[in-house]
């Protein structure tokens, strides 16, 4: 708790998504929020939540096993964006997400697709069915079926193509969730196509092989590495991207404390998402809110915005 002084201003704007504080949740690590209500009042506490990725039609996701514990403060996952499609998502979670919004927490819906057309179709459905969404996050790490499974946003050109296609289909803010490579170049391409903000980084591609069976420890040869182990890499990429673009960033990667979040903000992030830590420390994001506010006080400033990019 903050003491002996007025509470600092913690509100930020992530490209037009108004957040009461900079703390958000990383898609795929937070369900759609409701599972965490028994740990703390999500809607009354967080700046935003980012829902699980949703496609126009339901996706089954990958077969088991989807998860491996790596040691070294990291886990490996390959869930494959299991989701009920936009209609199913709104039907199942719409009422709950309205309640999150009504408590002052921004709801960000994540949009997934296997082709440019699928992103556009999902966006159209969200526009029509999801009035509770303060904005959208485009997950450009989905495999592109037409390109043999390479990520939709693997290159500046392909990332820009997705953004260019989606942009006319919503007037609400659009954040793009970036893969952990070429973030300056791809960030500039996305900004040029009208992205309102960028979120980075997604999981880092990795492998874990069971040497006894010679098989992958998860259902695919490669999967996503996350956890505190990737934090320093994520901070570096946020810093590089922040220098390259003029739109706000949401820093993601191994954030498990207020200090981790503060690093992201100093490196140039306007908002910060808690991801993997939600799984093993379900109260983490709420704690980060409190610790971040204390840090702002300790820095002797009255507004968290003064500290964005204040790395010296």
């Amino acid at each position: 708790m903050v003491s002996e002084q007025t509470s600092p201003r913690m509100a930020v704007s992530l490209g037009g998504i108004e957040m009461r504080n900079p703390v958000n949740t990383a898609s795929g690590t937070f369900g759609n929020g409701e599972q965490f209500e028994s740990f703390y009042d999500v809607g009354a506490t967080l700046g935003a939540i980012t829902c699980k990725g949703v496609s126009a039609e339901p996706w089954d996701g990958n077969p088991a096993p989807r998860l491996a514990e790596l040691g070294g403060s990291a886990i490996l996952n390959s869930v494959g964006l299991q989701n009920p499609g936009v209609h199913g998502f709104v039907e199942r979670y719409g009422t709950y997400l309205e309640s999150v919004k009504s408590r002052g927490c921004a709801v960000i819906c994540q949009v997934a697709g296997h082709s440019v057309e699928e992103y556009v179709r999902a966006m159209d459905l969200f526009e029509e069915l999801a009035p509770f969404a303060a904005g959208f996050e485009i997950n450009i790490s989905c495999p592109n079926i037409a390109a043999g499974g390479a990520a939709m946003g693997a290159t500046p050109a392909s990332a820009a193509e997705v953004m260019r296609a989606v942009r006319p289909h919503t007037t609400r803010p659009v954040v793009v969730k970036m893969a952990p490579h070429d973030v300056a170049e791809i960030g500039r391409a996305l900004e040029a196509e009208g992205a309102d903000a960028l979120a980075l980084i997604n999981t880092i591609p990795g492998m874990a092989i069971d040497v006894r069976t010679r098989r992958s420890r998860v259902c695919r040869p490669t999967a996503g590495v996350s956890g505190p182990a990737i934090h320093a890499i994520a901070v570096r990429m946020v810093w590089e991207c922040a220098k390259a673009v003029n739109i706000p960033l949401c820093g993601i990667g191994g954030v498990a404390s207020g200090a981790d979040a503060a690093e992201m903000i100093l490196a140039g992030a306007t908002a910060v998402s808690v991801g993997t830590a939600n799984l093993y420390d379900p109260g983490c994001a709420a704690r980060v809110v409190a610790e971040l506010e204390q840090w702002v006080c300790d820095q002797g400033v009255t507004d968290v915005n003064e500290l964005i990019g204040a790395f010296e």
Partner: protein
Amino acid sequence: MSGRDVGRATAGRVSAGALGDAGPVAAARVTKPHGGAVHTQVHPFEVRTNEPVAEGVWCMRCATPVAAELEPGQFVNLQVPGDGSHLLRVPLSFSLADGANELLELVYAVVGEGTERLSAMRPGDTSTLVGPCGNGWKMPSEANGRALLVAGGVGMPPVVACARMLAQNGVGFDAIVGAQTGSRHVEFLLDELRGMAPNEGCDCARKVVVCTDDGTLGVRGFTTAAMADLIADHPYEIIYTCGPQPMMAGVARLAAQRGVACQASLERMMGCGFGACSCCNVELTAGGYALCCKDGPVFDAREVVW
């Protein structure tokens, strides 16, 4: 190999997941306001005893207020102290939740890095656990029904909890327990099983059949062979099972052939234990996946692809 299979290493882990994106099974079970296990919280626990009861098998008794809320077949997800290099909690089912004394009994096999650290906890050590997680066993729908329990090895703890639930409700049951060669750890829980209140009524004295693959304990052979013999002679209303996947698959198949209802407690590697990450998927016969942690860990065996 340490760290491999930290989840699977644990004894008969039960699960709880998020109904999140699960299929029809999940949807049918959403009864709480926000579609989640709203009472799932972080609770403290303090180790009272933690000792080996057989080769590689330990029994921990710990004090925790969540014991009063747990239902048989649910599970808890323990934060085991360590150097922080392993992130995930260790999900464990329990053989006994004594609400009056706020005491939990966990019998677990040390098979991975997580359970290795768990076995190093000493009386007085404290940490946290998340729970209650998941959905437990359901009682038979017929008041006079008789149940058959089929447990295999480390799947025994939740089956013992199930037996206790049945005994307390006056439901008669028989039990089959399978173990590997030389596995003496089942004897530990067998004593608990045999010590429960007898079946009511003189016509249904309880049978507890023990099978090992070499006959070192009980009869020689698989649990499913013993099960085929028992169900040929008795009109069971329901079968409850937990154990290795191949054993449960055999139990589920036999139950389906005989038209007997069957509940199975499944085990999966888990991320969160409360449905946030969708990592512990269970393939459904109706298509798509449910989540072991939230939609299970106890499933209707007919709904699961074995």
